[in-house]
């Protein structure tokens, strides 16, 4: 049986890390959408989505990334994807995501790619 969908939120180097696990389909995408909306409402625009635990993604999940990208970048932030597995990556690739999104190997690297967030960056990477 497939795993359900879960989101855990943490912080690293001034970026918000949304660790998603399980499947992101038309059923679970609304939960992911609200999680990102909550971040934006509280003024957080440096987002890293840690996809290490993601077992499946369909266009409904990809649509969430797409619908927020422009707004987040206009506000000076970004939504970066980290630790995405080969199965999910091949789907992103079909749609040309690698040209449009910053897709990074690790969460550490993704978080480090944001500029200094008002002095909060460790600089120890």
């Amino acid at each position, binding site marked *: *049986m*497939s795993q359900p969908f879960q989101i855990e939120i943490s912080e690293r180097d001034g970026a918000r890390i949304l660790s998603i696990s399980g*499947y992101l*389909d*038309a*059923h679970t995408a609304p939960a992911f959408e609200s999680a990102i909306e909550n971040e934006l409402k509280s003024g957080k625009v440096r987002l890293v989505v840690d996809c290490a635990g993601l077992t*499946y993604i*369909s*266009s*409904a999940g*990809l*649509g*969430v990334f*797409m*619908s927020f*990208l*422009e*707004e987040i970048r206009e506000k000076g932030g970004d939504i970066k994807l980290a630790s995405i597995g080969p*199965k999910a990556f*091949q*789907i992103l690739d*079909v*749609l*040309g*995501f690698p*040209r*449009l999104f910053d897709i990074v190997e690790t969460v550490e690297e993704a978080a480090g790619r944001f500029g200094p967030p008002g002095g909060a960056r460790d600089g120890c990477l």
Partner: protein
Amino acid sequence: MARRGGREMDAFERTFTLLVPSSTGNLAMIRDFVASVGVKAGFEENEVARITLAVDEACANVIEHAYSRDEKGQVTIRATLDDEDLAFEIMDNGRGFEPLRVSEDDVAELIRRRKPGGLGMRLIRAVMDDVKYQITPGEMNGLRMVKHIRRG
């Protein structure tokens, strides 16, 4: 159609059917069904994952557009496996819509307009070898997707 104990020359063909209420909560069950049939057809793991995605996208479209998320509808997924092809037919009795007539805008343009619709059909076309849509007004809508089985 091959019958059990029929002539040996008949093409080998098997049919598997899943009928579920039109709720996105059933997409996981639909994917499990499709993956099982894909494995049975002999596709390798990555290909099974891609076929599963295509059927998920088609069913999600039916739930959202044909039934407007009304869970009283039903979605039928019929898989037919023969020597050459694995075919999936997705059937519903909802409002007929034309999924092939989707926006051809590129993904960058969809992001600019903050409108992510139409991605599902794009993925279906990328994965399946043949995609056809049939509407019988007031009766049934069906999307038929075929994946060729390449042997050897």
